[in-house]
Each structure stands twice: as C-alpha cells, then as structure tokens.
C-alpha cells in the first residue's frame, strides 16, 4: 500500500515489550491517519469509564499520508488519549521532527499502554525500541529536558516530551516538541505523566512509500515556494496570529476579565504591532513556509514564543497589558508544559470567583507577579490552591459552589479559546458542540458571521458553516495531518491537499471523500463522549451560562446590551444536530452511523446509551 507504512508500533510500558502490528488498507482508507487513526484505536481499545490517569488509558502518537513528505507545512503529528480534563476523547496536533522520523522508522502510529515503574522515556530507532531511564530529566522543564535529549540524539531527532505539569498530572498539561510546539490541550501531557513517560524519541532512516514520488517532490517543492510567496505578499507572518488581537478588540470579541468584558482601551499594548516590534526571531515547524512563532524576550530574559491564543488568554483575559509579563507567563506554561489557554482561563476564573465572593483569595486581575506565583503552584501542585488550579475551571467551580459554574468559561470541561462569544452565536455553537470541548481549532466562523450574515443571527446557515469547517479541518488537516495556516491565512487552495494525497497514495480522492472521512471521525469522537456520558443531553453542547445572562451584557460599546438568547441558541443547536444527523441529545443516530460505515460502533454505543 502506498502512502501509508501499514504498521503501528504497540509499546507496553508495564512489561517493557513492543510489537509491530500490520493494519489493513481498508482501515487506512477509512480513517486516513492522524486524528482518524487515534480516535478509532481509542474507541476500540478503551473500556468506557476507565480512569484517564490510570494505566488502562492509552497514549497515541499518529501521523498520516502527508507526514514526512515535502509539501507546505506538513510537519504535524497528532497526540491523543482519553482526556483527564473532559472525560472524552482528546487530541492535539503539533509540529515536530517526529512526524518525519516516525514515517521513516516505518510506522504511522504508536500506542503506549500501561505504565513505567520508574520515570523513563522510550527511544525508537527504526526497528529497535529502548526503554530508557529519565531520572536526570524528571522534575525538569521541557526546555531542559529537550536540550538533554538533543545531546543524546541530535537536534533533528523526533522528540516529544512533557514538563512538570505533565509529571504532576495537571489536567491541562500538554505534549511539547521543538521548544515552542505544543499539542493536546485537554490533558494529553498529563496522560504521559501518569505513565511515568517523560519523552518519546524517534529516529528513522527508511524510505517513505509514495505512489508517484517524482511528481510529489516537484509539486511539493514548487508549492512550498508558492506559499512562502503568498505569505510574503500578504505580510501575514510579520505579525502572525496575534494580528487577531486588535481585530477582536475592535469587534468586541476579545476575552477580557474572564470574558466579562469584550474589549479594552489597553489592548494595543499587547497587540500584533507591539509583538512585531519586540520580535527577536521567528520559529516554524518542519516544512514550514510561514513561520508563526514570533519570539520576544520576557521579563526574566527568556526567549518566549507567542501567538494570539497565548496573548489573548494570559494577557487580555487576565487584564495584564504588559507584553513582557505576558511573555513570562507564556514561557512558564511552555516550560512546565501546560496549555496557555486553559492556564489563562483558570487564573481569570479564580480572580473572578474571588471578585464575586465564591471563594477567598488574594489574586486580582492585572497582578502579573501573583499570576506567575499561582501558575507555578498549579504546575507543581503546591498546596491547596495549587491543586485547585491544576484541575481546571469546571472542577474549581464545583468546589466553590455559589453558582460559579455559570462563569467558568469552559465547555465539557475544556476552557474556551481566546474568542469571546458574548455576542457571536455561531462561534458559541462551534465551541459548544466540540466533542473535545471548546477548542478554536475545530471551527472558527467569526469572520463569516460578520462578513456574510447577521452577527446576532441564529440562522441555519451558521450551523451549516460550523459543520462545513469541521469537515474541512478534521477530514483534511487533522487526518492527513497538516497545518491549516496556508489555507486559512494566505489563501492556498484546498484542492492542493487531495492532489498531494493522490500522488502519495495512487488513489483518486476528491475533497468530498475527505469530508466524509471527517464526518466519520467526528461522529466517532462524539460517540466516544456519549459512551463515557450515557446520560448526556443537549446542555452538554451549550456554552457557559453567563453568556445568556442579560446582566452580563456589555454596558457600553458596540454590543452594549447584547447577549446570547437561550431559546434561539437551542434552535441553532437543533439545526446543527439535524445537519449532522444526530438526535435531539446530540448523539449520532444509527442511520447516520451506518451511512458513515460505523454499524459496528453503533451496536457498541447502543450498549451504553440510547441510539435512535
């Protein structure tokens, strides 16, 4: 089979054994790779109700047909597990040399099972697998751990690692690579930590099987130049993703003060222009043609690589309008290996809960030094407050009581990315319906809402747009996998991706084939969630309650007096379910699952929850 290696490597950490397993071409074509492989493996192999931080959980590393191939921005790897934060399926994609090495070693996925008796790491060099001691880097941050591993394996080796956040099982700990790259927001790093697995190193030397190798190489090299030119022409990477901050501020969609506010007159102090001026170097992933990692020097003198989500959540949402301090918080998150979005949201919720009398504490919005102390305490799980903050905003709210869950800014336990949906119903829907929780990478439709329809509307078109984008992002970018920026930011045509895929595999897929695969993968992600929460209802797909509260509406500005309306949101949710072919609880129907080739999975799901 061209385009896939046809093999998965299964590693038992408890027994320190491994096994190379073949998979079929039917499996490859049904699940494509990346997220598709990960969710299928986890759905089939995990028993519902297991402890996500127990040895029964599995940590998956998966790539796909585009991995290791010369083409624009194709250096992405998916990391996945059952989430300790949400209880559902969790994944993230990150740029890493492991993408290339894994394929060259002859695998499309790694499955880590069980738990190491002592902290360690696993090294894979083609067919050789070694279980190594990690005592020297256990308790160290990701930068030091990666440096230590570079010393042993070289800087271009494929390396994934965790920091103290993952070791201490902070529920929003991530997996890190190549200094600035991170993935797995809903606690995938904590799952590695629970297995005493500090790092994974891969080095491969084999040929990657391609159907039309010469064609792919010529096309890929040309297109890398093309995307680089598109980026240069548009000047996108001059400010990178943080250009969005000024725009969100203008649109009253910026998270400010635990999303109580939607803009701030001080936002300019941390916007894309300021970051561009402070930038000392840029970083990119393997095969990157539009480097988005703008790096500046933080308050303590570290190099800190920032993007919009970091600045939005660690800056604006905490009312810290000092870019150097934001960079410091960002560096800490990167080094401890925790998600910047959730870290910012958790601290903002803590300050808000103190403000509203739900708990007692000494943290106020705008206090950068105290924010750093609290972040450190959370990542090291120091004391009662550290442990509280390490568990995420939903669990915090349930401890605080006083109806504080209403303003814990999360869906299904995962904190909202940096888009304030106070008056952006379609984006609120996108966050609400995500089977992993509120994640910007699944669907982002604010520009559609403003450009092509009524901002405050709840029309079926918005639900359709959310589904369309989910299909593209999951079917193509999460499964192949590849970075979406060439498409979303500089207009590189989507058709390029099926063209690459066909040259790599020798198949003849159209975009619609990827969308169907995306629907299949998405349905299984939701089935995974439904199996874990058999009594789920449509409230699981709602955004935070505070968005519906008239008292929370902006007092002035361009959306003064506006808020989401619960009846209309529910109607919009109904449109989404209808388009997706899900029932009125948000569970994929048997007919839908059968149409996607998921009859066996529907039978399984019906053992746990109602499937209509």
């Amino acid at each position, binding site marked *: 089979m061209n385009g896939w290696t046809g093999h998965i490597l299964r590693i038992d950490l408890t027994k320190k054994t491994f096994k190379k397993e073949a998979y079929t071409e039917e499996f490859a074509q049904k699940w494509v790779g990346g997220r598709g492989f990960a969710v299928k493996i986890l759905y089939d192999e995990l028993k519902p109700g297991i402890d996500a931080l127990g040895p029964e959980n599995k940590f998956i590393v998966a790539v796909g047909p585009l991995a290791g191939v010369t083409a624009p921005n194709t250096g992405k790897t998916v990391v996945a597990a059952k989430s300790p934060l949400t209880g559902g399926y969790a994944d993230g994609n990150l740029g890493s040399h492991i993408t290339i090495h894994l394929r060259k070693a002859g695998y499309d996925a790694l499955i880590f099972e069980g738990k190491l008796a002592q902290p360690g790491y696993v090294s894979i060099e083609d067919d050789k697998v070694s279980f190594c001691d990690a005592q020297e880097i256990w308790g160290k941050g990701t930068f030091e751990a990666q440096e230590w591993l570079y010393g042993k394996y070289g800087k271009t080796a494929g390396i994934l690692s965790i920091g103290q956040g993952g070791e201490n099982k902070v529920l929003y700990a991530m997996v890190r690579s190549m200094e600035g790259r991170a993935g797995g927001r809903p606690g995938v790093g904590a799952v590695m930590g629970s297995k005493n697995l500090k790092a994974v190193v891969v080095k491969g030397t084999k040929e990657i099987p391609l159907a039309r190798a010469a064609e792919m190489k010529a096309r890929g090299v040309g297109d890398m130049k093309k995307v680089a030119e598109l980026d240069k022409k*548009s*000047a*996108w990477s*001059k*400010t990178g*993703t943080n*250009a*969005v901050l*000024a*725009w969100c501020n*203008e*649109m*009253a969609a910026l998270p400010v003060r635990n999303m109580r506010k939607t803009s701030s007159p001080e936002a300019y102090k941390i916007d*894309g*222009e300021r970051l561009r001026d402070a930038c000392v170097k840029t970083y990119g992933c393997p095969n990157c043609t539009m480097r988005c990692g703008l790096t500046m020097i933080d308050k303590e003198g570290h190099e800190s690589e920032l*993007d*919009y*989500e970091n600045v939005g959540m660690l800056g604006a949402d905490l009312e810290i309008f000092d870019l150097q301090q934001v960079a410091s918080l960002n560096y800490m998150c990167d080094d401890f290996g925790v998600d910047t979005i959730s870290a910012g949201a958790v601290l903002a919720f803590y300050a808000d809960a103190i403000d509203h009398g739900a708990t007692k504490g000494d943290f106020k919005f705008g206090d950068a030094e105290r924010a750093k102390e609290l972040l450190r305490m959370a990542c090291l799980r120091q004391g009662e407050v550290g442990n509280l903050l390490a568990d995420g905003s939903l669990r915090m709210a349930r401890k605080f009581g006083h109806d504080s869950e209403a303003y814990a800014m999360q869906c299904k336990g995962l904190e909202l*990315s*940096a*888009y304030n949906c106070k008056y952006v119903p379609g984006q609120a829907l996108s966050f609400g319906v995500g089977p992993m929780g509120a994640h*910007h*990478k699944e669907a*982002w439709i*604010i*520009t559609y809402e*403003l*450009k*092509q329809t009524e*901002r405050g509307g709840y029309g079926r078109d918005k639900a359709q747009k959310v589904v369309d984008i989910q299909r593209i992002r999951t079917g193509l970018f999460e499964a192949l996998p590849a970075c*979406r920026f060439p*498409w*979303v*930011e500089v*207009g590189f045509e989507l058709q390029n991706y099926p063209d690459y895929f066909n040259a790599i595999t020798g198949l003849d897929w159209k975009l619609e084939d990827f969308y169907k695969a995306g629907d299949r993968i998405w349905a299984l992600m939701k089935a995974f969630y439904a199996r874990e929460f058999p009594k789920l209802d449509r409230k699981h797909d709602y955004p935070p309650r505070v968005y519906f509260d008239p008292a929370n509406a902006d007092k002035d500005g*361009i*959306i003064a007096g506006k808020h989401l309306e619960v009846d209309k949101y529910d109607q919009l949710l109904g449109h989404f379910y209808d388009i997706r072919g899900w029932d009125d609880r948000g569970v994929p129907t048997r007919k839908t699952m059968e149409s996607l080739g998921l009859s066996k999975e529907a039978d399984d799901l019906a053992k746990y929850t109602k499937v209509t």
Partner: protein
Amino acid sequence: MTVRVRLIGPFIPRFGFSEKDLEVPSPCTAADLQLLLGLQGVENLMTLQGRGLKPQDALSDGDRVVVAPIFSGG
C-alpha cells in the same frame, strides 16, 4: 466627507499606516472605500460598529471603518 480607517495586522505594513482620517467623496460606499484604499482583489473584511459592511453599504461622515484581512483563526 471624512472617514476614519483602522487597518489590522498585515494591512498595516502593507499600506503604511495603522489608523488615519481619509477624505472621501460623498456619497461613498464600502466598495468605493475599498477602491480608494487599493484593496480591489484583496480579500478583506470591512466592519462598522462591529458589523460587516456589504459593498453597497453607504458610509457617513465621521464613520470609523475597521479593515482586516480574512482571518480564519489560530
């Protein structure tokens, strides 16, 4: 009449300003403003008071228009 234009992100280095007043003929539509800015053929999102402008929408003296590229999320 005068329209205030606020550019976002990559448009700032591209057009050489962040925010400024522009003298425009009256009447002036969003499409007219795009032409004046040299944005024809460049995908963009024009908003006024947080709402998207359609090409035929008329602008008024003193309006502040935000012009951004089509972002699609981080």
